[in-house]
């Protein structure tokens, strides 16, 4: 039941926010905060109680809820949690709190509807991470899309409508491809077994010829690759991230992109191991191109938020690489990168957003020398920039290092190219610091340094990145049983398929 609570609290909290906002905007904010904090605390308690004993004992899932929804079509309301979902859900609720706090002063109009959308998008994301019925999964996938569209289109910046429509078209079209693939899988499974089901654990192991599997897999892959985003389907991202309000950017970068990574991990490779294996050279090469190209694009930007947005293209390239390399080192690395990137980039968006609130511009030409007036703020920005460029001792480094270590086992060339991508990240990281915070304060800004509310957001994020960088073992251990299981299903079935084809 706790899984239902996770989502229900947010859905109900969203409606409550909407209602309460008619009387008082602050009450609405506090309601939203209460809902996200409640969920975060619940998930944290759940994690602590599972760790590490239950995780190791876990058979299929740590907890699940399975209600019949449309029995005729084999559709269930089936939520389940394992180590992977658990970590992502904790991250989701944490960034939920961050987004609510980040919008505290920024959002002044339509406060109720804003928080409704915000909590619902978080609920949708939690649903994506928890659903193990593909129909429900698709439902949650769409649920997170629409509120996100509103967040960008209503509360965004200058070119918000363009960005929102672009975001919507990219994700919606690719989502439709996934729907087709889900249905194809559904019917193929029926033809093979005579059972109509959307159940994840049933559909795993559905045998089909490789050429069919490739097409079905591509439907899933494209949907997830757009979300991730992978070069060359990344171009919605800079616009959406840049135009979205701060909370929107945090959720986009910290969570929405991760649903793509999660989909690849959970569905693409385990459902279609042979096809994914066949496809892995293409995916890994595109991943490495994304790492380098994203970093170079970030380096070329003059809009601070756009710069941060492009860094996501680079970092998520690492995740894609790790997933398709598919060995233990790379997978654990991908998971750490997912979490660390969520925190470090989320924090950068919070900072850039609050900078924009202070000086009403994102152009780096209008900044320069901010360290003189807001040293603490700049120090925090420096910290997260260093995390982002992979400084050892901070979370992102552990992820990227493990991914590269795993990749080296598969391909030396890809490893070298991706390492050059890490080098390229130095360029944008230092440009970020130099153009905004170093130099002399030529525009004579006199700004307020970090507010208490901002310290409350930033300090835990610093602590988490240090923790991930210096003692990532609890996170790794939480993921390990799930990872072993994913690897096992994929490889078992991979062998079965090989035999089937002979």
């Amino acid at each position: 039941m706790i899984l239902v609570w996770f989502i229900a609290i947010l859905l109900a909290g969203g409606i409550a926010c909407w209602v309460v906002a008619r009387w008082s905007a602050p009450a609405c904010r506090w309601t939203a905060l209460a809902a996200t904090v409640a969920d975060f605390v619940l998930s944290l308690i759940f994690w602590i109680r599972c760790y590490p004993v239950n995780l190791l004992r876990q058979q299929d899932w740590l907890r699940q809820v399975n209600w019949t929804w449309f029995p005729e079509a084999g559709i269930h309301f089936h939520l389940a949690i394992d180590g992977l979902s658990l970590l992502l859900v904790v991250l989701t609720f944490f960034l939920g709190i961050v987004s609510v706090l980040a919008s505290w002063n920024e959002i002044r109009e339509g406060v109720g509807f804003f928080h409704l959308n915000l909590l619902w998008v978080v609920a949708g994301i939690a649903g994506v991470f928890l659903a193990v019925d593909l129909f429900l999964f698709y439902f949650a996938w769409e649920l997170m899309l629409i509120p996100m569209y509103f967040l960008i289109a209503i509360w965004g910046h200058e070119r918000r409508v363009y960005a929102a429509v672009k975001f919507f078209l990219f994700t919606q079209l690719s989502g439709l491809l996934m729907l087709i693939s889900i249905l194809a899988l559904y019917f193929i499974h029926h033809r093979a077994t005579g059972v109509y089901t959307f159940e994840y654990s049933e559909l795993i192991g559905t045998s089909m010829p490789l050429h069919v599997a490739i097409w079905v897999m591509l439907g899933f892959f494209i949907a997830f690759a757009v979300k991730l985003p992978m070069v060359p389907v990344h171009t919605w991202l800079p616009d959406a991230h840049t135009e979205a309000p701060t909370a929107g950017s945090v959720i986009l970068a910290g969570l929405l992109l991760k649903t793509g990574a999660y989909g690849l991990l959970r569905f693409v490779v385990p459902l279609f191991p042979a096809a994914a294996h066949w496809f892995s050279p293409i995916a890994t090469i595109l991943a490495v191109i994304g790492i380098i190209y994203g970093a170079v694009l970030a380096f070329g930007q003059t809009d601070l938020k756009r710069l941060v947005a492009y860094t996501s293209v680079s970092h998520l390239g690492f995740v894609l690489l790790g997933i398709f390399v598919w060995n233990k080192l790379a997978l654990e690395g991908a998971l750490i990168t997912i979490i660390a990137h969520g925190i470090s980039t989320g924090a950068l968006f919070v900072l850039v957003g609050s900078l924009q609130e202070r000086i009403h511009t994102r152009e780096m030409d209008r900044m320069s020398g901010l360290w003189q007036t807001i040293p603490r703020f700049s120090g925090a920005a420096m910290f997260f920039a260093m995390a982002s460029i992979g400084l050892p001792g901070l979370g992102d480094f552990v992820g990227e290092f493990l991914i590269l270590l795993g990749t080296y086992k598969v391909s030396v060339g890809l490893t070298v190219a991706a390492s050059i991508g890490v080098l390229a990240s130095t360029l944008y990281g230092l440009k970020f610091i130099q153009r905004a915070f170093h130099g002399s304060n030529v525009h004579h800004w006199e700004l307020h340094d970090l507010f208490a509310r901002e310290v409350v957001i930033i300090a835990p994020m610093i602590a988490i990145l240090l923790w991930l960088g210096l003692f990532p073992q609890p996170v790794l251990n939480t993921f390990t049983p799930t990872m072993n299981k994913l690897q096992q299903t994929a490889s078992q079935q991979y062998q079965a398929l090989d035999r089937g084809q002979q």
Partner: protein
Amino acid sequence: MLELTGIIPAIPFFSFLLLAVFGPRMARKAVSVVGVGSIAASTIISGIVTAVFISAPPSGWSYHEVIWRWMSVSSFQADIGFYLDALSVVMVLVITFVAFLIHLYSTEYMEGDEGYSRFFAYMNLFVASMVTLVLADNLLLLYLGWEGVGLCSYLLIGFWYTDPANGRAARKAFIVTRVGDTSMVIGLFLIFQRLGTLNIQELMHRAAQQWPVGAAFAIAAAALLLGGAVGKSAQLPLQTWLPDAMAGPTPTSALIHAATMVTAGVYLIARTHVLFSLAPPVMLAVAVIGAATLLLAGCSALTQRDIKRVLAYSTISQIGYMFLALGVGAWSAAIFHFMTHAFFKALLFLAAGAVIQAQHEEHDIFKMGGLRRMIPITSWAFLISGCALAGLPIITAGFYSKGMILWGAWSSPQGAPALWIAGLVGVLLTSLYIFRVIFIAFFGEAQIPVEHPPRLAKNLSMVVLSVLSIVAGWVNLPPYLGNKLWLDELLHTSLPTVAEKQLGWMTEGWSEGIITAAFVLGLLLAYELYLKHRGATRPLTENALGRAIHEFWNADWGFDFAYDKLFVAPVVWFAQVDKRDFIDKFYAGLAALSRACYRALSATESGRMRWYAASIVGGTVVFVFIVLFL
């Protein structure tokens, strides 16, 4: 008592945290107490650890301590663990002690600065990272320290961030060294893939077992690590960042860009010496890089007017000597020279810093003069350290360490007369460029009146380092002076000894004699050219060829220019051209296409009956045609 090892990096790390969070609100006194006190505490502990290590050595002359398991993924394990042996003991003691003196000096040097607490925060973080680097028991933790010192170097070069030029120098340092780091991290991947561990002792053990001398993987691994070492230690071809790094406050230059961080590459190679011994071509490369660097940088040092840039090139050149020693397998000579160099080069910078502050931030030696009468302690300190650098025989420390290196270059099996000659020419150059500075800036007529003469903190640190610049050499007395090789013997518990091949007519005494002759020649030349007949060098730079060479050396042999054109400009150009991301043009094209289709189709909805009738008729005809004929 060896359990205290883990505390040595911990104290400065926590004082960094304290200063970073509360520093701006603390009183200057409190900042000094925390900032300097933490390093003093670390120094005392490393002193105790060293004393215990030497007096009651642990079994096998090594001590290993795991603080916690950093990460463990399937077969990959890395610890936050420290490894103590003669090599790391010597390094840590020198680093903490020199760092302490420089911190002490900084309380006076930085006293008027706005970023007082920020400065000490960065410096403390640096010491924490540097000690971690040296003590790390595995290459990943070493890499953490490695990148940590790189970050501090960046932060401190760009310490006075309001001047964009400082920012540029800082970024250049960070990016150039990270080029080397990229090579190093790939080396880590290779080592783990082939040897299954990153623990330094374990990997050397396995490498020696698995790989024969000259094995391809050993060569690749050593070459990749060398890439990292070359970047950090500012050797050819990645030396370009160090002269610009002088933009930082002078104590920073003394600590990071002279005494400690830049020698991290030397330490890395010495630490993984087994790997390098398995790769003779890489060893040769190390020696040749060292020899070439020491000559090139020595020439460049001759042409600089900025006192700190002379010292920067001198640092590059002296690290070249250390590389030369490593390349010929004279491991302990390299570490010996690291130690003496840490003392005298730190002192040179501290004295230069005192001079600069006394001369209204003037860096140009030709605008100075007669300083020896105005700031005597500083002048003596500069003179002593300059003599140690040039290798004044018997008295100064540099003589012993350099002599040992050159003797290794001649006598070791990997040595060669050519390497020895390169080192010998280097001695001449060193003596010439450092006495050039001394004669121009400290002798002659006074030019700028002295302001802010050094006070207690500065003088005290300079005096202590002056003493060390002399006595530090006496820990290794060569055979012709009593053969008391204390440091050498200590280091040989963790580093192999140099084998000596058949020697012919040359003995260590002869080698030292010839070096001394080169030193004296350089000194006399400098005296003639820069003191007795000032301006005697002018004819040299007045003809076109002379001026061209002068310019070329002054501009670091054109490396900067070439890198700008080859690497920097294309990347910047592409990033600017592609700011709008040409891939997005494709999607914009799709959008434009569908908009065009929409317009075309909506144009047909004109409301004119004739058009509608005509298109119905036309459509019918086409349809019938298709049905009937296709």
